[in-house]
């Protein structure tokens, strides 16, 4: 059988790498063929999601930020400073999270989707035309954000003027000075050339871009046990692969940016500098609870418990290593 799998990025970006691995695993271990449809070839994010719900597509990768319009709870991934900056803790969270593995799947199922996995795509960084060390530096800065209420809220809390803008216009708008900043993971800043039209990359550590892979539920339920196993195994292999792939990806992307544009200033904020940004998180969390749907509180509590567990297990591992 031919399975179709669409995602929101280009073939050699993180979602595309995951999809390619998934395809290779499925095709090596079964007679099924997987066709890949990168960003834009079947429409935008919302379109491919609807097609997966309709069953035209069997698999789709959509980031919870976009899914928020459908499953409001998924916006939890936009609460700043919720996810840890430490890579080991982060990976441990995604491997073991009860919220991801038990609380989210029924919410996706209500929308006709089988949630297969969630994985991180990289630390979100600001690229701006002026240096940013403190919220005061964002004052009056028109900062391009995705059209999502929580990101808008976050950047308002940071002191910027959040400016929703279609992705296709961002490069030109940075070039002319219509906006002065935008945020994305390092690999995306590199691949979309955002560094060409900004001079500063700032790492406030406020978030890690998360994405989710799902299948059409009717399709998945109708699979033979054998094929279900093939899918689950391929997802597991691709998950391990993508975490390994990401280990170092951020530094590699930043190195490429430095090489292409030596004048680029890349700053990791210190814990002290992060503190005033971190203080705004509570307000955004409150907003999430307001608009995050019926399960918002349960999801947030579980996420925090999972993160606590991830932090403890990472510390235990570190202690064992010493």
């Amino acid at each position, binding site marked *: 059988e031919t399975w179709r799998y669409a995602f929101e990025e280009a073939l050699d970006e993180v979602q595309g790498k995951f999809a390619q691995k998934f395809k290779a695993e499925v095709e090596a271990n079964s007679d099924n063929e997987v066709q890949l449809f990168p960003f834009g070839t079947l429409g935008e994010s919302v379109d491919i999601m*609807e097609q997966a719900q309709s069953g035209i597509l069997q698999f789709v990768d959509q980031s919870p930020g976009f899914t928020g*319009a*459908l499953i409001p709870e998924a916006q939890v991934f936009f609460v700043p400073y919720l996810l840890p900056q430490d890579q080991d803790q982060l990976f441990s969270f995604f491997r073991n999270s009860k919220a991801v593995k038990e609380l989210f799947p029924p919410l996706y199922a209500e929308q006709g989707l089988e949630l297969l996995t969630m994985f991180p795509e990289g630390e979100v960084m600001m690229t701006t035309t002026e240096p940013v060390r403190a919220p005061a530096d964002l004052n009056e800065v*028109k900062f391009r954000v995705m*059209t999502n209420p929580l990101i808008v809220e976050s950047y308002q809390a940071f002191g910027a*003027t*959040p*400016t*929703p803008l*279609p992705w296709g216009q961002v490069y030109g708008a940075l070039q002319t000075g219509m906006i002065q900043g935008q945020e994305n993971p390092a690999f995306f800043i590199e691949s979309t050339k955002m560094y060409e039209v900004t001079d500063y990359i700032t790492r406030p550590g406020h978030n890690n871009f998360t994405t989710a892979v799902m299948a059409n539920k009717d399709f998945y339920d109708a699979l033979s046990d054998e094929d279900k196993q093939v899918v689950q195994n391929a997802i597991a292999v691709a998950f391990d692969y993508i975490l390994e792939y990401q280990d170092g990806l951020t530094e590699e992307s930043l190195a490429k940016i430095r090489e292409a544009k030596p004048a680029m200033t890349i700053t990791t904020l210190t814990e002290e500098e992060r503190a005033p940004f971190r203080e705004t998180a509570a307000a955004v969390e409150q907003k999430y609870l307001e608009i995050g749907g019926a399960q918002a509180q349960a999801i947030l509590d579980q996420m925090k418990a999972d993160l606590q567990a991830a932090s403890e297990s990472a510390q235990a591992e570190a202690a064992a290593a010493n």
Partner: protein
Amino acid sequence: MDDSEYVSGLPGFLGVIDVAIARIEAVLLALGVLLMAANTVANVVGRIAGHTIYFSEELNQALIILITFAGISYAARHGRHIRMSAFFDAMPFRSRKLMMILIAAVTSATMFLLTWYSLAYLLEQAGRGRLLPALRIPQWWIIVWAPLGFFLTGIQYGLTTVKNMLDKDIWLSTSTLEGYDDSAEEEV
């Protein structure tokens, strides 16, 4: 053409309804365009003042759907849809007449088919409950114009089919005879 002067090609009560629908379509078209300009300008002013209208883009999306689907039936009514008529024009009268009946009938049927499926799409979207992220209203609210526009367009082409069967001339729409109007002065 001033809509107060629009004369329906339809007799009696049908004509009255036709004129009323034409008026509504025209108002929606004009209002849609004016609102779009106002919304876009307001967004600029807002941004410069430091308060971006974060739902501006979604409002424009809603308006462009409104304009497109109010417009396609308005265009059908006035015979303004783009077609390549070079070969058609070269045919003798009888063939053109038969061809126009076929064209209007097939176009009408296609429009009704799309009415059905856009209704299906609309209901599906309503069932999924997707919200527009910034406006936070159900997404299906802004697409109701699609089935409505296809339906009214289907009716226009259906009536054009009938008109061509009953009348001796060849009609592009119920009120427009074939052949482009060359006058640059003509307003639509």
